[in-house]
Each structure stands twice: as C-alpha cells, then as structure tokens.
C-alpha cells in the first residue's frame, strides 16, 4: 500500500494550477482533500504521473451568499459545511448532509468540490448537488470558464462531464426560502460508512400545499437519481404523512437499483421506502 512513483507540484495560483494540468491532462490529478485519491493511489488503483496540489491556491474555499444563490468554493472542507452559518432550510440541509460524511478526521480534510469531482454514487454532496440542481463552474487553461448543470455533470461512476484539463472552482446552490422542508437520511452498516442507500429531499410547502418537490436517491443507480415519480406524487398535493408514504412507495417502485453484496435490488427498494420519509423528518427511527 505504497503509491507508485509520481511527480508532485504545488501551484500558488489557479493560473499556475491550470497550466500544470494542461501540460499532461490525462496523466495529472488534482489533489484537494485527498480522502479518496490518496487511498486509491496507495492501493495503486490510481497512478497519476503528476499530482497537482491546489490546497495553497487562494480563493477556492468558503461559502458566500450571492442574491438568490449560495456559492460554495471547491476547497470548502466538509467540516466547514457541517458548521456553516447559513440560515434557513439550505444551511440545515448542508449541515445534516456533512455530518454523514465519513468520520471527523475525514471531514476536516475532504472537500466539497473534491467529492463532486470524484463522483462516487454514494457521496452525500453529489446527492445534494443533484437534488438542488447545482451549477458547477469549471475552468481550463485552453477554454476558460464554463458552467455545467448538475443534471449533466454526473455521468457515471467516477465520471463527470469535466474534461481532464478542467478544475472545478465553485458550485452555486439555490438559496431556499423558509417554506422548504429539507433533509437527508441514509443507511450504512456502520456509522461513517458509504451509504448503501441514501435519500435527500427538498419540498416546498406553502399553505399546506406542495409547490415544489425534489427527491434525490443515492445507491440505486450509477449516479444520483432524481425520482420523478415521487416528485410527481407530491407536487400540488396537500402535505401529509400519507402523501410522503405514497411518494416513498413511488420512489421505490420507480427505481431500478443494482444488486451487490451490500443489498439486492429488493432490499434497496425497501431502503428507499424507509428512508424517503426519514429524509423529510417523518420517522426519526434510525
């Protein structure tokens, strides 16, 4: 469990970082928090010839409100997300999602952007980004800046829409007004493990009626899955526990989860059924 030989560079500016990658994009990797990349290198599953450490690049971390959006810098640590001061349903969702990420030492190092770029189907941040239709700002030396919507960003396991010479620099999330109910629930065999199934939700309820519904599931597809069926069940209806149960049933029926040692498809559907209501705070039992 020692990595194969690699070159290590530590640029001081984003321009330098982009240049360092542009020299050999296919053989270079960005080092952010390193909580997935370094173990993969130690297992020799990843063998980048060059590691570009962006931890000293200024301006890439932190949260900032920007009108009806919140911008999250790519290097914002999970721990900072867990203790973010944002008011309202968005701040609460980010705090609760962050608390599910690994264990404390992992959260002090791992980053929001790194998690999205890594694109693990079980990642809480990938789920939240897809749930809220986040917009990813990416940059390259050759083509400058572009914005990729979450619906296009997550393509397959460990595969995003980013080109090898691009760096994810910031992520825009919608600021949610006080009518939203948000939450996350997941199931893993042990605390801190990757979720077998996870559910996130953001549902806007005004005067008892659902005016917007977003349900996003992890662990049931290669990438985070928005459950259109569950969202349809909710939208325009009167908010009630029975409605949520019906949405959970619809989510379970609508997905086509894979089977593996952690759970066969039927079990994963059971988990969806159990977790969607919990994501909406209707069943506190863990």
């Amino acid at each position, binding site marked *: 469990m*020692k990595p194969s030989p690699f070159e290590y560079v530590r640029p001081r500016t984003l321009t330098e970082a982009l240049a360092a990658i542009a020299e050999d994009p296919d053989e270079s990797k960005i080092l952010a928090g390193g909580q997935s990349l370094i173990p993969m290198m130690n297992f*020799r599953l990843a063998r980048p010839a060059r590691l570009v450490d962006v931890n000293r690049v200024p301006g890439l971390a932190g949260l900032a409100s920007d009108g009806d959006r919140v911008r999250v810098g790519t290097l914002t640590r999970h721990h900072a997300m867990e203790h973010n001061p944002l008011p309202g349903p968005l701040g609460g969702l980010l705090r609760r999602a962050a608390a599910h990420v690994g264990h404390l030492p992992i959260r002090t190092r791992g980053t929001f952007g790194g998690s999205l770029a890594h694109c693990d189907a079980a990642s809480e941040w990938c789920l939240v980004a897809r749930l809220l239709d986040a917009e990813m700002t990416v940059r390259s030396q050759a083509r400058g800046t572009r914005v990729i919507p979450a619906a296009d960003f997550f393509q397959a396991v460990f595969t995003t829409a980013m080109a090898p010479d691009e760096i994810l620099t910031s992520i825009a999330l919608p600021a949610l007004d006080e009518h939203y109910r948000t939450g996350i629930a997941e199931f893993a*065999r*042990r605390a801190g493990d990757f979720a077998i199934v996870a559910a996130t939700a953001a549902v806007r309820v005004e005067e008892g009626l659902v005016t917007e519904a977003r349900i996003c599931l992890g662990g049931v597809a290669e990438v985070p899955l928005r459950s259109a069926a569950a969202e349809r069940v909710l939208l325009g209806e009167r908010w009630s526990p029975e409605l949520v149960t019906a949405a959970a049933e619809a989510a379970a029926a609508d997905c086509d989860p894979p089977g593996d*040692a952690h759970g066969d498809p*039927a079990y994963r559907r059971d*988990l969806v059924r159990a977790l969607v209501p919990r994501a909406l705070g209707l069943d506190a039992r*863990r």
Partner: protein
Amino acid sequence: MIGARALRIEDPVLLRGAGRFAADVIRPGELHMRVVRSPIAHGRIRSVDVTPALLLDGVVAAWTHADIAELPAIGFRLTPLADLLPYRQPVLARRIVRYVGEPVAVVFATSAYLAEDGAELVRLDLDPLPAHLDADAEPTAWLDAEQATWAAGLDVELPAQDSQATAFTVEYGDVDAAFAAPGPGWRVIETDARIGRHTGVPMECRGLAAVYDEAEQQLIVDGAAKVPFWNREAVAAMCGLPPRQVQVRETHVGGGFGPRGELYPEDVLVTLAAVRLRRPIKWIEDRQEHLVATNHSRGQHHRLRALVRPDGEIEALDAAFVLDQGAYVRTHGATVASLTASMLPGPYRIPHFRARAQVRLTHKTPAGTYRSPGRYEGTFARERLVDRIAGELGLDPVEVRERNFIPAGAMPYERPIQAMGTHLVHDSGDYALLRAKVWEKFDLDGVRRSVAERRAAGELAGFGFAFFVEKSGIGPYEGARVSVDSSGAVTVTCGASSVGQGVDTVLAQVAAEVLGIAHDTIRVVRGRTDQFEYGRGAFATRLAVMAGSAVANAARALAGKARRVAAHTLGVPVEDLGLADGRVLVTGDPARALTLAEIARLLDPSGAAELGESPGLTAEGWFHSDHMTYPYGLHAAVVRIDPGTGRPHVERFIVGYDVGRALNPTLVEGQIAGGVAQGLGGALYEEFRYAEDGTPLCTTFMDYLIPTALEIPPIETLITEDAPSPINPLGVKGAGEGGTTAVAAAVAAAVDDALGRPNAITSVPIHPAQVRRLLG
C-alpha cells in the same frame, strides 16, 4: 495486591508514545521485503520471472520457490494430526497456487516503495484452474501424489489427497442406541447453524525485523508475538542454525487474538533473508495483505440433532460439522476442529454425545485460531439448539438450561473425552448460581418484561441469552525467575508473552503480593528467548494461570531464601520472620528488619558462599499442569430492530463470568469488553466474502466491517469468584476469551425474540437485508 484494580505497568511507556512496535525497529542499511502474492485462487504456475524486478535500481534480491526449494513446508505447533501433513503450506508457492494472496515470490529493496515497485515487475505466468470454495460440497481432488509426498516430508511416498484433510469423531456414551430406543414422549430436535468466516484483526498488522549480527554471531528477530520460543526453534531449523544462535524478541504488540505471532511464510522469508543477504531485513504487512495473508477463522457449518426428554433434558446429542480450512493447514493443525468437538457439550451433562468433525480445504486464505476458537462456533450451534428445544417443548429457555446443567455437586466433572490433548475435567463451577446472580444483578426478569411490553406497543425489541463454558490455562509448564538487585529493585523474568493483554501487570501483582512490595516497582522481562530458557506462549488464555502460578512459586522461593538469610543475620528463627514493604522483619519486633536490598548485598557470591546459599537474591519457580481450567459465563443481549432497514441495534450487552479468582478485575473487565466487541463483529458485521472465482471481496476496511466504538453498546459485566480452580495455587481461571464465546448465540436469540419468530436466525453474521426479508 492480588485482586486489586491495579494500574497497568505497561501504560506509562505506551501512553508517552515511547513504545517499540515492529515498525519502530529501524536499522541502518535495512532492506524492505515485499511479497508477490497470487492474484488468482487456483492455478498452475508455468513460470515466475523475477528478472525485471532485479533490473530496478534499489532492488537487491528477489526469490521464487526455486531459490528456497530446500526449505520444508511449515510445521504444526499444535494438534499435529498425521492426516494433515500433506496439506502443509510451502514458504513460497510450489507448482500450484491455491488462494488469492498466497506468497509466490519475494522482493528485497532499499525502501518499502521500491520493494512494492519491484514486486509489480515480477512476471507471473499462471494457468487458472477452477476454484473450489464450498466446504459443504463433496470433497474433490486436492493434492497430487508428488505434492502430498513433498509437503508431508516423511520420506514416504503418499498417494494423491482429496480436499477433506481429516475427519474424526469425539464421543462418549452410546448415541446410536439412545436414538434407537427413545422413551415415551421423547423428541428429536434438530438445528442447522452456520458461522461465517471471519478473524481477529489487530490494529497493528504483522511485522518482523531481523538482522544477522556478525559481531555476536546471532540472528536477532524483533517483532515476535505470542510464541517466540516455539518460533525460535522453527526459525533456527529453517535457517540451519542452532537455537542458541537465534534470538527472538517481542516488541510491543498491537493486538494478537490468535492469528498474530504464529509462524507464517513471511517469518521464514524475513529471517532467512537476514542470514543470506547479511543485511537487516524488515517486513511490515499492510492491511490489504493482512486481510488475505493472515489466518482467517470460524467458517463452520453445524448440523445438530438432540434426543430430548419431555422435561427438556437432553439425553443424547449427535453433532456433525464442517470446517472450512482454506487452502492449507497451518501451525494450528486440527486445533480448531478438535476444540469445537470437545467443547460442544458446554455446561450440560448430556449422557450420550458424538461430534463428527470434517476439516475441508477450499481455495481461500488458510484458517487458524481466533479468540475462543471452536467455542464461539460450537456455543452458537448448541445454544441455538437449546433455544429451539425450549421453543418446541414450550418451556422457558432458563428452565431447559438449568435442567441440563452439570450440578455444582458433581464438580469436578469428568467428561470422558479430551480437549487439546488433556482430559476434559470441569475443575469447578456452579452454573445455576451464576445464572441466578446475573438474573438478579441485572433484573433480567424485568428486562424480559420490558421488551415484551415494547413489542406489545409495536416496537421490535427482543431479549436473548446464552450460557457457555470456556477453557483456559493449558500447560504443560511455565517458569519464572524473580531477582532482587543491590538496590532492592525486583525483576521478574519469564517465558510469558504479551499481546497487549496486561500480563506484565498481573505477573507483577502476583510477585508484589508475595514480596509485600508495590507492583509498579517491578520490572517484568518476557517474550525474549535470550533472557529465559523456556516459554510456551500467549494463547489459549493460559498465562494468568500458568505464568501467574510460576511467578507465585518463584516469589515464594525467593521469599524463603530472603528469610533464611535474614534469620541467620538477625539470629532469629525463620518462623519469626515476615515480609512487608520490601523488608524482612521480625514479627512482633518490626524494628528489627533487613531490607531486600541488604539481603541481596549479603548474597553476593562471597557472602552467599559463607551462608551456604547460591549467589544472588534470586529464585526460580515453575508450574506444571496437565489439565485445563474451565471458566464459565452467561451472555445476554437486548436488541432493537429497525423495521424499515432490518438493522439490529444492540442496546445492551451483559456478561456474567466466573474466573475463579480475578487477579485484576479491571483487566478482566477490559478483556471481556474487547472480547464482546469482537464477538459482535462476528455476530453482525465481519465476514470474508468471495466471488465465484475465489477472488476475495473483503480486502479493505470498507468491505470487511469491524465494528467501531459507535456500534458497540456499553458492556455490563459481573465478575464472580464462586468457583476458584482447585488445580493451581492462585485459584485463577483465564479471562481472555469469555467475552467473545456466546455473543453470536445471545444476539441471535435476541433477534429471534424481537422478530417474534423462534429459530429464525441460524447463521451469523446476521445481515440487515435478511432481517428485513424476515419482516415480510
């Protein structure tokens, strides 16, 4: 001092970070060893080419089997049945690879990184063969005659061997006659029980650092654990040196649990390389290697059939089990199978008993012992059966157990079979008393009522318990030397080993008690073959009994010598002298006294000659035993099941354990807490899974699920001392394994109860998905 909650004398060094673990042994010019392991479960070796590795700058040497062809297969330390000899493991794979992770070649380089780079360059040309993974399947061809003959090493031509390495029966009474002639209303009740393949996974992986010291002409091996004296003999033989030219030394050890410290292929390679290459050699196992290279354990399938009288009394038990041995038989020989069979009756009388053991090879990592070997498995099977008997007869599970207990008045109770080569004699015990004490202390009737009420209210809560008998203190001997220097400082030197269990503290407490001094002033030297002549090792929960008794004998001999010298010097009869506060004093006139330091100085060689004593205030003591002691206990669990996910959540775990005499209750409780955590691992989390082609699926801690502090409930413990052992001077029985033994059985019973479905759980680990399915 004995029985005190004394602080561990090991801890000041460890807590300051001053300990020395295997990886801390750093020698100038050392080479790092990297093992090239088979990537496939079964295949014919066409060629292994190390040349590309040798071309890498920094690689100093690389070997295949051809380079060590003169080495025999690795021998058995315990239970060396002749049947098993052909199944022994070669140091490097020979002709055939038989599991993923089997050492095929080895590379030595100037850094661990270069060694791993070099290992990648070794070219393996392997012809894959089908993998045989199901130990339940009928035995298949396993070894050809050539391999069998070579591995057995008997200079006798052996025929080809199948995958059943051995099968044997342990029995007494007449099981067939009992089943053939049941009394009126007697029932035959059967159960099936499976225990998943898992093992003890210490926080510190294995590691060894060896050097051939040219000045001293000694091969020095650091990083040993468990059985340094046996390993010294084995290493000396493998390296062609006399044992006096080999020093094996323990470092600090980050957990043992059975797998760690046995003689593995890597141990032979490290030491042989130190001799051949004349460079310091270091090998530090990484976690991915560990999970395929270090002994696995458990992996048993039991089928039990009991003949039961209407009142729940078990008249006869007919058991058969298959043990999934993995690809080779390692140092433990048939130990696990033997212990499983012999300990299966547990605390119950059972007039007619038979256990048929089948040890079968599969293309998986070889299996050995793990904390409570054979008892964890057998207790799960037996206690599941007893619960089933209670359910089918409509009796309370407490009542069924008490009806079958060996009564206290029948102790010592001889079961006419053997365990680990000793006659199985329950030396002492009052099982019903312990059951009653645990019930009262933890109000288990109240607990049962409370879970019943919760169930009535719709919650999936359950209670379950299991009873077990452990064994400890296997002989045949341990020795110790207690010495006092000219300043009065006391050193205990012995053949014991430490795997972190606190043996130093306990031995110091025993010496302190006899000598009337503070235990934390005593230095304990152990685990070093250059400091003591004999030691049998840290396994089978034996050291408190064996080394503790040896130290007691040595300290008493030393006290006798000190009193003789004091009597002579002070001019009083020996009988008038006592020991207190490091002094020998005249009873009734404590001002007249000699300190141990003064006596030690009087015993310099000249003084000793005048006194007619041997030089030095020092004495040896030995303890011999040809029987084991049998501690016993009860485990109980309260479980809540999440109806949505099926996850069983253990809310409470209760252990009652009688250890005869608790030398240090805090350390006993610590042993139990750690043991329970490992037992819960096997009950709910840990399992080595394999793909159909034999590829291991659990080679990281993401897939091999060790419970963390967050998964372990508070562990509530009652230690009792109602049945001191009559067969050692301290009355002590071992505490090392009783935390683990019945965890799977108790948790399974609690899950059954929570589900309201008797006999639902017949295998561990219990998967949430399976529980969810049972909920419908």
